């Protein structure tokens, strides 16, 4: 029996169905395909078909050890999968709150193939079982609470009557944890307004709002009807409904265009877009404040759209103008109900573990935020640790670039201990670093292909990545024609230009690293300051457009440059372990990882690493997401995020 069996007896026809299921394992990959590729796994060859929606999956494939936040997200995914469902874990030790893995294997293609073989047998035998139990986890629990229909601030855990009016409390469900917000299948907020009591008393200057749901605003303390958290007081923000009381002294007058609400300036004049005269507007009356402050929109839109309110007089029945007048406006001026939806942490085409939360205005991004569910909070604990485990920890931190971080740790330790590296092994290290750059860029190409629905690119890049991963000097040179022909064919693909030109445009005045920086004409390549690279004939690549196409070009250029560097270096081998003995001192190192410059400072005490300070490129790049995505169409926004090549594993809290 498998833990996710479907209820029923395995007999007759079901036996046939179960064996068909065993041959058709739709697989949802956790943390993501990028990790599978980085480990050199070919899921299709092992017989697993990837699916994008948990509803279409029957196999949950977990690769490697994943941090608790990601496991919780995976539990939500698992709960949405069709039964019979089965968990295949490669090299993972702890999966809670997920149930224990049905099949366990190591991280290698051979072990994966064996695992799939076992999985098929398990499905064919155990897909149906007479008594099955539901999967439950704290992250999934919906708490039932009781509230008064007249006094929403009254919330009890048990049934009873309202202390204010004596009415019987009614039952409703409250979400127990905030983590519920991170499911892949968000619930729309639109059905939640019914029954919410919005009394229109304006006397109290303090409003109460939920820290998780800013659209929940009420005049009395209580708990959030959506998640049950206690509401917090805040200064009332003057909105359209209240401004008759607050239109005074400190309200700066701003001027806006009646056609282009995004045009706002401090003095009268004409609109730079259409030339119309600007109209005065109280500063706090602006509609586009609503981008961050949903209290405006829900509070008032509800009053106009619900039919049973008394303030319907004088308003045309179901007039679109009246119905939509208080909805937030985006740049195009079209009012729509905004939806907040999570993208990730397991969306194909985005790095696994990156959770994007987009506020969507139709198909357009009104606001975006990003966070990593794989950020390594437990890194370098407990300090002090011996240098060898420090190297291993840093190298395991980012499965997308282990060699770069291993080299970074070694260099910083050598700097602290005052060890010189012979030129031959320095060259071999460059070979290993540049080979990782090629595999990392190929992995990005595969991800980019997945993001844009470009199947050929995904397959081609993944195949080449598998070949370069552990390739020796000769094999790298032998792969050169294959890489060149892939690049040539990719750049000729129809629709590629229209998909990438002008999308995700960054300007050189932002803090950027690595290929993202070099695509906007900034040369901050750590390699250009190292003498050993210049002697090998290194020249930094550069493009100026700063858009997705430029970043694609840079990475393609760098793949070919790295091959030349490897050929010039003449050897490939990752750094040997550093013995620090009982030395003390401070050291620092900078490495140009595939994603940009990473820096490490550490102090060594008696050969043990005491303190560390790490800087990684993705930590800075993740802050670019909101400005980059605003007012972009959804497809463009996701392409732009993909083009940054973030690694959620190296994002520092």
């Amino acid at each position, binding site marked *: 029996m498998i833990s996710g069996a479907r209820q029923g007896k395995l007999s007759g026809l079901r036996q046939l169905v179960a064996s068909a299921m065993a041959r058709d394992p739709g697989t949802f990959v956790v943390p993501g395909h990028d990790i599978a590729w980085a480990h050199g796994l070919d899921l299709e060859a092992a017989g697993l078909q990837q699916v994008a929606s948990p509803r279409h999956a029957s196999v949950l494939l977990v690769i490697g050890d994943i941090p608790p936040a990601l496991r919780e997200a995976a539990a939500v995914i698992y709960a949405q999968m069709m039964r019979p469902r089965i968990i295949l874990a490669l090299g993972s030790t702890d999966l809670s709150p997920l149930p224990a893995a049905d099949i366990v294997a190591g991280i290698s293609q051979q072990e994966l193939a064996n695992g799939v073989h076992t999985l098929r047998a398990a499905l064919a035998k155990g897909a149906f079982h007479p008594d099955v139990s539901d999967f439950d986890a704290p992250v999934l629990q919906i708490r039932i609470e009781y509230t008064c229909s007249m006094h929403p601030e009254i919330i009890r855990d048990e049934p009873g009557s309202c202390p204010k009016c004596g009415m019987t409390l009614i039952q409703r469900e409250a979400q127990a944890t905030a983590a519920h917000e991170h499911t892949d299948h968000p619930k729309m907020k639109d059905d939640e307004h019914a029954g919410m009591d919005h009394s229109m008393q304006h006397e109290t200057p303090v409003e109460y709002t939920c820290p998780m749901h800013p659209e929940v605003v009420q005049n009395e303390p209580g708990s959030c009807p959506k998640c049950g958290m206690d509401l917090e007081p805040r200064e009332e923000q003057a909105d359209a409904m209240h401004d008759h009381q607050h239109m005074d002294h400190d309200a700066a007058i701003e001027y806006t265009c009646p056609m282009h609400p995004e045009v706002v300036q401090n003095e009268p004049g004409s609109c730079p877009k259409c030339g119309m005269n600007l109209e005065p507007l109280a500063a706090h009356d602006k509609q586009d404040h609503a981008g961050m402050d949903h209290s405006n929109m829900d509070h008032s839109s509800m009053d106009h759209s619900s039919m049973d309110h008394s303030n319907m007089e004088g308003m045309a029945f179901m007039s679109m103008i009246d119905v939509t007048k208080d909805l937030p406006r985006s740049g195009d001026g079209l009012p729509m109900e905004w939806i907040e939806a999570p993208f990730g942490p397991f969306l194909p085409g985005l790095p696994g573990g990156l959770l994007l939360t987009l506020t969507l205005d139709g198909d357009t991004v009104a606001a975006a935020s990003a966070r990593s569910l794989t950020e390594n909070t437990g890194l370098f604990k407990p300090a002090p640790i011996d240098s060898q485990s420090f190297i291993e920890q840093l190298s395991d931190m980012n499965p997308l670039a282990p060699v770069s971080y291993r080299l970074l740790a070694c260099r910083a330790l050598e700097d602290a201990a005052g060890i010189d590296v012979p030129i031959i092994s320095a060259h071999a290290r460059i070979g290993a670093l540049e080979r990782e750059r090629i595999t990392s860029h190929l992995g990005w190409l595969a991800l980019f292909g997945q993001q844009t629905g470009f199947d050929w690119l995904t397959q081609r890049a993944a195949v080449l990545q598998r070949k370069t991963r552990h390739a020796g000097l000769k094999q790298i040179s032998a792969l050169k024609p294959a890489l060149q022909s892939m690049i040539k064919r990719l750049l000729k693909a129809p629709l590629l230009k*229209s998909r990438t030109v002008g999308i995700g445009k960054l300007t050189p005045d932002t803090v950027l690293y690595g290929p993202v920086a070099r695509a906007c004409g900034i040369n901050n390549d750590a390699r250009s300051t190292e003498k050993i690279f210049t002697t090998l004939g290194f020249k930094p690549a550069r493009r100026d457009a700063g858009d997705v196409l430029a970043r694609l070009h840079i990475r393609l250029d760098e793949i070919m440059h790295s091959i030349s560097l490897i050929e010039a270096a003449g050897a490939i081998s990752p750094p040997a372990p550093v013995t620090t003995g009982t030395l003390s001192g401070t050291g620092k190192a900078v490495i140009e990882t595939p994603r940009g410059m990473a820096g490490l400072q550490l102090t060594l005490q008696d050969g043990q690493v005491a303190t560390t300070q790490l800087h990684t490129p993705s930590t800075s790049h993740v802050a670019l997401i909101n400005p980059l995505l605003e007012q972009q169409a959804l497809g463009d926004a*996701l392409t732009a995020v993909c083009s940054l090549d973030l690694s959620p594993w190296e994002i520092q809290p």
Partner: protein
Amino acid sequence: MTTALILLLLVLGAYLVAVIESWAHSGRFQLSAPLLAGIALLGRESIVPRKPDRIFYEVAPVLLLISAVLAATVIPLTPELIIADLATGALFINAALVYVLVALLMAGWGPNGAYAMIGGWRFLGQLIAYAMLIVMPITAVAMRAESLLTTQIVISQSGLWNILYQPIGFILFFVAAMALAFLPPFDLPNAKSELAGGVEAEYSGVRLAVFRLGRLALIITLASATVVFYLGGWQGPWLPPWAWSAIKILAVTATMLLAGRYMPRIREDNLLGWCWILGIPLALLNIFLVGVLVLVFP
């Protein structure tokens, strides 16, 4: 009898489309895969999402299938093998396929989820792009045949197939048909990497099986329509008519399915822009040219 035979052929066609599609996607040719996938889906749970619009949610997959089957009724596979040789056949195909939009909008709205809903909206935008480019090329085809009978349209191409007689119309119709079947690179409503499956994302089990069957039937119907309108239908030397229909339909299907593999997904604003700024003037030009040809060489 004809009806049963055509429906059987439609299912067989849908099956072959599924084989070609998985081949185009994964590069592996597995003849048994769609059968196993279908049986497996029937045995899996069909989960209903929380708070769905139940009628829309249940009807959408069935409506998609019905729409494709309706359009298939006026497709002649041989001069006799046609369910209904309607006097308005060419127009009827277009009318039946409008329900594809309705089905996808219902599938988008029904599950009460963000991804599905955005997928539904996107297809509404897509309709605005492709709709004219289905009707206007059909107009030019009917002008040459001087009939809306689909059998008459095939016979009118006995001298020269429409793909050569009106190549502009063929290209426009082919692209619009791909957009109508939301095949890559026009898979905006069900993009995996943007909407985790979009309109399909919330369907599972037997409902998903019906949805997928509907989509496969839609693809085969559109390929058949392309063959009837532009590739001379059942006509061809040596082989019997049914064989020519089968060969041509499968070739068109394979082209439609493979094209998306070699390019990234189109951007929605480009799709709309190109269809209206470039496509519609070209379609008008096509009608004009065909009109001149019909007058000059009657």
